């Protein structure tokens, strides 16, 4: 017999938002509503009368205890079915093992951990709880057509564009651009992996949260999950993992260091092992994506969509989007828990200056220091690389020099703090002229500043004098 409950409602178990009480009609409806306090034991746990406290208690249980607890009463069962509890337990297990030969996601984390395919029990009842409802709400919310209407971005055709053209028109003015048909050759190897999951060889395992798994297993999970914050495949060692023997991965022409192009990526001088993490294979489910952020270490980035399509929103440097608040030192960003929550609550507040959909084969240029977020409109595979070119060299060097505590992508604290020095060393060795130009300019700026301060002090003094 087929499961008649829709994918969306499968993991909900009769949970409704608190406000649903106003929609209840008559005694029959009310009879379905379970008394939470009673279900937890009126004279004991029920007295806590707080969904978050109950979940906190359950979050401390191991698989066996949580499974036994699930059978205690109907209300307790519904709380024990909160899927994040099982997800945490699964991830904990993975962390201990570190490697997954096969990952068979059975539709919910609870089913996956307890290894049962068909849900047998569904309470014919209603549990009113915002805490239990909210993650489900954003985990299954549909992408609103109104979020896809605007198309605000300059575009380029890769076949008709030279590197110089691109640098002059976009990289130097620090302007985003969507480049069509740029990936055809460059990422053929990955296209193969993304397009034919069942042919993906057993040897390719990629990083997903704390564990490595096959791309096809991940994509299968991505199709079936209904989480607010689903797992994301995010692997900075993908080239080493999948292309250790072949040479299929080629940086797209516009960004490749060649004789004709010159050095497009100055960080390459630091050497593959010493530069901060810089390239990632990314895969994510529909409705997942990257929340609002600025790329690390003052870098530019390119992002190529291998399969699927992605919705991009961008705000210029120094202009964080609504609902997103960076801390004073720029180290942390406060924003909604999930991307969908941001879209539902903040998308309509201010039109993003740059906004567009990138499809398979497209390449996006993300200029340094721009705020951006990316929503996957379907399951997506993409490749991204961060780089420093001449156009952003000065601002990247300043970032490393002035805010070493915000440097990221290096494993240990010492090399993060030393990135400014190490990068300078590499430049000194390979491109001393660029470094000298930077130093000269900084010296000039410092002098100007001094002069201005002197003038300022003079006026203050004369003011006081009078």
């Amino acid at each position, binding site marked *: 017999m087929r499961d008649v409950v829709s994918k969306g409602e499968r993991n909900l178990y009769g949970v409704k938002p608190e406000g649903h009480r106003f929609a209840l009609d008559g005694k029959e409806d009310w009879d379905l509503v379970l008394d939470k306090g009673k279900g937890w034991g009126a004279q004991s746990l029920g007295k806590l009368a707080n969904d978050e406290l109950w979940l*906190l*208690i359950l*979050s401390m249980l191991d698989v066996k*205890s949580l499974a*036994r*607890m*699930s*059978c205690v009463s109907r209300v307790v069962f519904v709380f024990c079915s909160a899927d994040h509890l099982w997800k945490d337990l699964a991830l904990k297990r993975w962390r201990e093992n570190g490697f997954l030969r096969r990952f068979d996601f059975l539709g919910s984390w609870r089913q996956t951990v307890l290894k049962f395919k068909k849900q*047998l*029990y569904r309470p014919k009842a209603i549990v009113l709880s915002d805490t239990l409802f909210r993650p489900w709400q954003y985990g299954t919310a549909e992408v609103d057509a109104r979020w896809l209407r605007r198309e605000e971005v300059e575009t380029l055709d890769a076949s008709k564009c030279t590197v110089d053209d691109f640098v002059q028109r976009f990289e130097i003015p620090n302007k985003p651009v969507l480049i069509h048909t740029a990936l055809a050759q460059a990422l053929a190897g990955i296209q193969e992996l993304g397009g034919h999951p069942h042919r993906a060889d057993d040897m390719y395992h990629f990083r997903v949260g704390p564990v490595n798994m096959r791309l096809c297993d991940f994509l299968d999970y991505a199709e079936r999950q209904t989480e607010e914050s689903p797992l994301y495949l995010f692997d900075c060692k993908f080239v080493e993992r999948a292309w250790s023997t072949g040479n299929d991965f080629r940086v797209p022409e516009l960004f490749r260091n060649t004789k004709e192009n010159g050095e497009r990526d100055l960080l390459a001088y630091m050497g593959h092992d010493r530069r901060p993490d810089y390239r990632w294979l990314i895969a994510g489910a529909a409705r997942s994506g990257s929340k609002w952020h600025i790329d690390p270490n003052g870098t530019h980035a390119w992002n190529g969509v291998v399969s699927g399509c992605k919705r991009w929103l961008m705000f210029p440097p120094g202009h964080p989007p609504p609902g997103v608040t960076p801390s004073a030192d720029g180290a942390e960003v406060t924003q909604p828990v999930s991307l969908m929550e941001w879209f539902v609550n903040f998308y309509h507040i201010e039109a993003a200056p740059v906004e567009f959909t990138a499809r398979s084969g497209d390449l996006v240029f993300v200029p340094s220091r721009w705020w951006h977020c990316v929503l996957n409109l379907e399951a997506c595979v993409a490749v991204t690389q961060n780089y420093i070119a001449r156009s952003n060299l000065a601002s990247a060097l300043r970032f490393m020099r002035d805010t070493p505590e915000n440097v990221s992508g290096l494993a240990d604290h010492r090399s993060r703090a030393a990135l400014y020095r190490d990068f300078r060393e590499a430049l000194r060795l390979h491109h001393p002229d660029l470094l000298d130009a930077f130093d000269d300019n900084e010296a000039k700026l410092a002098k100007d500043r001094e002069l201005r301060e002197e003038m300022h002090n003079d006026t203050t003094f004369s003011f006081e004098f009078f």
Partner: protein
Amino acid sequence: MVDDSGTDEEIPLPNVKTAILSKVIDYCKYHKDSPPEEIQKPLKSTNLVECGVSEWDNEYVNIEQEVLFELILAANYLDIKSLLDAWWDSGVEDGKRIHVVLVWEGNKDLTCAKVASMIKGKNTEEIRKQFNIVNDFTPEEEAQVREENRDLGGLCVALRSISSRTEQLEVKVTTKSKAPVLDTVGMQGTGPCG
């Protein structure tokens, strides 16, 4: 804790008994200078000391169940935000502010971990008894829930005993109602247990 802040501002403490409040304050005083240890989750033992809890903390929650619930409730009733605001306004240095939050979270974690340790290691019937929870499943439902939540602790023996119990249930149920509600039970009898 309130005294330490040196503020005269009144903080509303509805529904909190003095004895309970003084116990919360004991905890804050004890952890004034050393934040509580982080508790390892999921609990690997019913003995909290083996989960990273200090002897003092373990003794602190070694109390009657009823008092324990009041303690959790007290922490929840106290308007934490106004309490913290009062501290902050009184000029606590930055490092201390984080400490206050840690102590507060620690108190909640510790008391809830104590409850979790009372659940751990018990079977469903024993849990119901511990917390006086009424079983409101129908026999059909209970069989289904138990089937889904079969013990995966690697105890194949226990597994077999559960499935034989559900078989007995099946007999009972089918005599009551004619619907073959349990047609799928036992389907996964050969499933892995580990």
